[in-house]
């Protein structure tokens, strides 16, 4: 039986001295109030009201039960209040620092509509994992191999001068026997992509096609990587959306298909599911997946 609901009906009816007025105060139909009180009497094993009088007067047993019933109802109301407050506590979510501000704002607005007070915290990949471990955030958008990702973002090579080809082969960067080594063009990896499933295959291809080790380098920030690409013939490894924002020309790499994979990790599995389900679409736009790009191109 619904013990809390029955106690509520019992407390309201005995306070008002009437089944009709008490039921109305408890915001339930009068027959429901009567049925609940009958069920409670059956549960406790004795009548709570004296049915002989016109007024709803508690029996002696009813008067004995009233203080504990009142405590139960107050406690249930306090719990609901706490639950509402807990639901409104900020939900800190670590996100890639490559997310555009506008998309993050739209994500936060969408989360509000879903009853989640989202607080996005942009950070590079290693810091996001650290923020989650130290419980400074409730969930984090983590880097995973693309085949395991909830979201995937294609990666390619972006340059200032538009290439006349649709695919950029890394081998074309190889320094010729007669070229001075200073002509070597570099591929810059931004901190967001300094993760094993992106950096290591790229390094392996660098060695396999005969580039110099220095021709694939990790930049200390996206800004410095972009500066290298904007100020020279160097290439920036980035997503199509990033290239567009920086005014660079993006091409997929010829030798290998690189992609970022993202998933949500949380200390509480339910938090992760909630973000994945309720915020799939706006997060896709924040991360710059190809689906989120469609209206831009």
């Amino acid at each position, binding site marked *: 039986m619904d013990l809390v609901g029955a106690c509520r009906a019992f407390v309201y009816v005995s306070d008002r001295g009437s089944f009709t007025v008490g039921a109305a105060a408890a915001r339930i139909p009068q027959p429901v109030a009567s049925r609940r009180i009958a069920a409670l009497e059956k549960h406790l094993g004795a009548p709570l009201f004296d049915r002989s009088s016109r007024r709803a007067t508690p029996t002696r047993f009813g008067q004995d039960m009233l203080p504990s019933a009142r405590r139960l109802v107050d406690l249930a109301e306090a719990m609901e209040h706490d639950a509402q407050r807990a639901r409104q506590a900020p939900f800190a979510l670590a996100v890639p620092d490559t997310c555009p501000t506008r998309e993050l704002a739209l994500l936060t607005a969408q989360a509000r509509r879903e009853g989640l007070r989202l607080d996005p915290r942009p950070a590079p990949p290693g810091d996001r994992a650290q923020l989650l471990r130290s419980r400074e955030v409730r969930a984090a958008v983590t880097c995973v191999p693309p085949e395991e990702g909830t979201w995937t973002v294609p990666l390619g090579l972006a340059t200032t001068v538009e290439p006349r080809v649709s695919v950029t082969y890394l081998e074309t960067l*190889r*320094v010729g*026997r007669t070229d001075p*080594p200073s002509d*070597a063009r570099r591929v810059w990896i931004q901190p967001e992509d300094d993760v094993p499933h992106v950096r290591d295959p790229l390094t*392996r291809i660098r*060695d*396999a096609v*005969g*580039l*110099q*080790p*220095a021709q694939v380098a990790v930049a200390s920030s996206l800004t410095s990587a972009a500066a290298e690409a904007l100020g020279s013939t160097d290439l920036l490894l980035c997503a199509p959306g990033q290239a567009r924002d920086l005014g660079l020309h993006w091409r997929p790499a010829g030798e290998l298909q690189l992609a970022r994979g993202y998933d949500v990790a949380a200390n509480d599995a339910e938090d992760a599911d909630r973000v994945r389900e309720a915020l799939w679409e706006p997060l896709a736009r924040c991360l710059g997946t190809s689906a989120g790009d469609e209206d831009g191109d």
Partner: protein
Amino acid sequence: MNDEALLRELRDELDDGGLHGSFLVRDLRTGEEVGIEPDLELPSASLVKVPLAVAVLDRVHRGELDGAAQILVRPGRVTTPGPIGLTRFRHPARIAIDDLLYLSTCLSDSAASDALFDLTPPTEVAATLRAAGLRGITVRHTMSTLNETPADRLSHAEVDLAHTLAIGAATPGRGHRIPQLDVTRANSGTARSFVDLLQALWTPSRIHPEVAARVRDLMTANVLRHRLAPDFSSDASVWSSKTGTLLNLRHEVGVVEHADGQTFAVAALTASRVPAYSQPGAEALMARVARTLRDHLRAA
């Protein structure tokens, strides 16, 4: 440009190209030299075939061996890419000592070298070097030991793994988990010790002139010309050399003789930190560095 600035620039170029090593160029007429870490000891790989040729020809000269004597050579039956000559042969062959010297020195045929090591073991080759007053080159083992590296146990697709091991498994004191790369156990040498050997072959020394002349002729006939040769050979000069390659090691030592009589001994011994089998960029870079050093010395 002064020496220091040039050397710093070349060191940076080597580092960008993933190489470090021992370089020395010496003008054999004046004794002037310029180098980068010329006393860094590295496993010598196939460079050991030059001291081997010196030792065998010395014995031929003294009448201990007959250059025309035919030896029955076991086939190497190696099928992995790289090795050539008898090392790839599938059937036994009878070959004269003189011709084994050609195969060993000019084609870097390791099975031919081992047939010669059977007659003149490593200790005897080392003794010949000592008798000639040459120090710094150690000869401790034959060539077959050299070929049993992780690269020969892994498939070609996993060759980067063997190279990753070669690069990463070094231990303090220039030791190495792979014995062929451990300078305390392997055949080894420095750029300076090999330049000393070249000087002893190209200028009067304790090596008999006839022996030295034969070794010089063999080195002139070297067929492996992809490393330093493109930067040193021309119609106005003669490039005589020997290469050495093992896992991440790429070496070449040689002498360039110009038409005007100028003669330079060049030694370039390198180790790469790039885990790849084919590295044409590294070959070109070490040639470029060696050439720049030679040009600098010649212009000085």
